[in-house]
């Protein structure tokens, strides 16, 4: 009897993100009944897709035991590059998207270079590039907003088989990331690197390649997430992406990715995390909570989730401790 109880607790603790998600959805549903519809769920996922894509990139970096604080600035500067190309050189949307992604990759590669080659700790590197990136973006735009043509906005609202493109792109990215992490050598090595960098080196893993890949992918996904967000907003202003690094990290952590590296998964973990965060903000609007309390409420829920996560880890460790004696 005791054992089955243990098992139940263990099962619950292992699926905290899912349980939390359902709980929050129900709570908002009760507070404001019109929230409790398929449409609002679709909206939440659609709005979550850009932050989800950024969070998937963040997951790679977190898995190696690093962190990337610069994704918000990356989103800004990459989309500014795309917007200016369209505005000043009348580039096509395709060219602009490619330039945007390339800018993101270069941004990520700079982070990778500083972390891997110059051995500066990721927190400091990406804090620096966060400020530099924002500065470069402001310089390019003279801190004015950059407007995008309708062609870009169409991407944000297009649908295929009734599914909005942002959600489709998000799904493709998640699937690709899942395959990369779980079904390729490099992916498994990223987990190993985050668990024990020195050990990974000793095991013959090219740790520098693994780390660099993580930062570059994070840069790429930040730019892509930025572009999708712009496609929904129609323009990029000077504050674009600011604070999104926080949401991306929070989404990953809510989804069970460890800040210490080596633990976590993009599906279902990070997907749930991203949708959860978005659901909370959407729910707060729907429940007509005072606008000034939104940040506090979001932060409180994230804090709560991380707290639960920490409790969960200690509990799981206790439950999975090996017994020595066989009790009759």
């Amino acid at each position, binding site marked *: 009897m005791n054992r089955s109880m243990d098992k139940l607790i263990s099962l619950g603790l292992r699926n905290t993100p899912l349980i939390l998600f359902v709980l929050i959805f129900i709570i908002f549903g009760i507070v404001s009944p019109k929230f409790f519809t398929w449409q609002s769920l679709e909206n939440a996922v659609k709005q979550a897709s850009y932050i989800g894509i950024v969070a998937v990139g963040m997951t790679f970096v977190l898995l190696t035991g690093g962190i990337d604080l610069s994704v918000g600035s990356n989103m800004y500067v990459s989309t500014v590059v795309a917007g200016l190309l369209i505005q000043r050189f009348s580039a096509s949307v395709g060219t602009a998207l490619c330039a945007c992604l390339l800018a993101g990759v270069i941004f990520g590669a700079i982070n990778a270079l500083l972390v891997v080659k110059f051995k500066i700790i990721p927190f400091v590197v990406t804090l620096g590039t966060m400020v530099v990136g924002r500065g470069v973006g402001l310089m390019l735009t003279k801190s004015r907003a950059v407007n995008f043509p309708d062609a870009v906005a169409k991407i944000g609202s297009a649908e295929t088989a009734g599914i909005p493109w942002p959600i489709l792109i998000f799904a493709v990215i998640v699937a690709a990331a899942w395959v990369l992490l779980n079904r390729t050598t490099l992916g498994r090595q990223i987990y190993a690197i985050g668990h024990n960098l020195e050990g990974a080196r000793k095991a013959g893993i090219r740790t520098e390649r693994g780390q660099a890949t993580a930062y570059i992918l994070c840069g790429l996904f930040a730019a892509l997430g930025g572009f999708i967000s712009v496609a929904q907003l129609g323009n990029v202003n000077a504050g674009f992406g600011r604070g999104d690094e926080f949401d991306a990290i929070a989404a990953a952590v809510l989804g069970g990715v460890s800040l210490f590296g080596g633990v976590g998964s993009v599906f279902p973990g990070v997907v749930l995390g991203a949708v959860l965060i978005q659901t909370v903000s959407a729910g707060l609007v729907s429940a007509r909570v005072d606008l000034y309390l939104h940040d506090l409420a979001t932060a409180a829920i994230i804090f709560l989730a991380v707290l639960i996560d920490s409790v969960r880890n200690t509990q799981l460790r206790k439950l999975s401790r090996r017994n*020595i004696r066989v009790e009759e």
Partner: protein
Amino acid sequence: MTRPILRFEHVGKSFFGVPALQDVSLCLEHGELLGIVGENGAGKSTLMNILGGVIQPDRGQMWIEGKPYRPSDPSEAKRTGIAFIHQELNLFTNLSILDNMFIDGFPRLASTPLINRRKAKDMTRRFLEAVALDVPVNTIVEHLAPGERQLVEIARALSQDARTIIFDEPTTSLTARESDRLFKIIGRLRQEQRTILYVSHNLGDVLQLSDSIAVLRDGCLVETRRASEYTTDKMITQMVGRDISQLYPPHHSRATTETALEVKGLTQRGIVRNITFSLCKGEVLGVFGLMGSGRSELARILFGIDPCQHGTISRRGHLRKAVSPRRSIDDRIAFVTENRREEGLLMEASVQDNMALVSLRQYARGGQLIERGRVTSSVSQIADSLKIKAERISTQVAKNLSGGNQQKVVIGKWLLTEPEVLILDEPTRGIDVGAKYEIYCIIRDLAAAGTAILCISSELEELIGICDKILVMSNGEIQGTFAREEFDEERILQLAFKGHKTHGHVG
């Protein structure tokens, strides 16, 4: 004629100007098992690390199958067919056995970068069978016992089809039964004509396993000979450069009858059951048990790290309630854990900071500001009395010390708290013969001064050598108690194995 597979020529390495290895020349033949012995700091690890590509030599040359060999990193060594099974196993405990097997390169689906899961599973299963480990291939390594983890390491070496395998202290965390299983596997590896370098402190094992034995001392190769020409005594003589007539210090003191620690009916579900004993001042009480017998868990409960459901622990006639490590320290109990690297030392901190760690409160003026002068003088005093070999205790970092000296630092840390009860868990694990003797002397001297000592060990010989009384544990229970006059190796071992059949893979 057999041909040499591996040759070292005048290999040398210095760290910060201090030679760790000097002018070592060795030659191994195909399928040979070379035992390598030496005290800690003799250069065994350095030599193996050079072979395994972890560090690069300053001087000399290595040859493999007649070709010059100079690995720039471990992966190059691996590609050359050299597997290194480290003392601290190099497994990723967050990943599955399968992941660990192929972490540096999974089998792929045709020419895609995708992992061929089925092939990887089949191969993993086959290699796990080869090492007789019967667990699902998707088991996360975290959930395996130390012995099982080692088998995974060996399976990994097999999967890379390593022609040369380095074993660095493979038996330190294994039970007797697991060691036997390991030796059988090593035997099979030799039949397959693999070359093995076997580094160990267990001289008996080395003697039994090896074709030839190399003895290192102070970074130099003393001699290499056929194993048949060696005896344990001869190895020891060469290792320390002098005769050790006695492995254990004489018993000058006897236990008093004054109780220092009284334990009654200690029970924790799934861990220990009905543990009752008393420990007297000046007594060295040994606890013998196989790995997984509950001996270390008992120590953790006594010190207040882990909880216990029933039973009492009393000191000086007072019951101790709501036990925590802090309370235990206040109660003058000290605990030297079995794992000095992870639990006993701050590896990056200096010897002095490590030693002062627990007793720091005593040196704080007005409870807040630490008087460094007093700390330094107390620490130096203890460091001198324990003969800790460190350049400067205030600057030398713990991780650069040899195993024996590290262990002395941990013991010294607790001696600064002036303990009345000292719990030692595997105090001589992974340290060399000379340092072991010094630790034994420290234990007996402390007992002579009235300290009550509980000494846990998986080496029965050493308990017989230094203890006044031995408790035998198995399956979380005390199976028997032996006073010094009745020590009987065979009977103690029989009791230790009792009850170990019910749950095969733990013990």
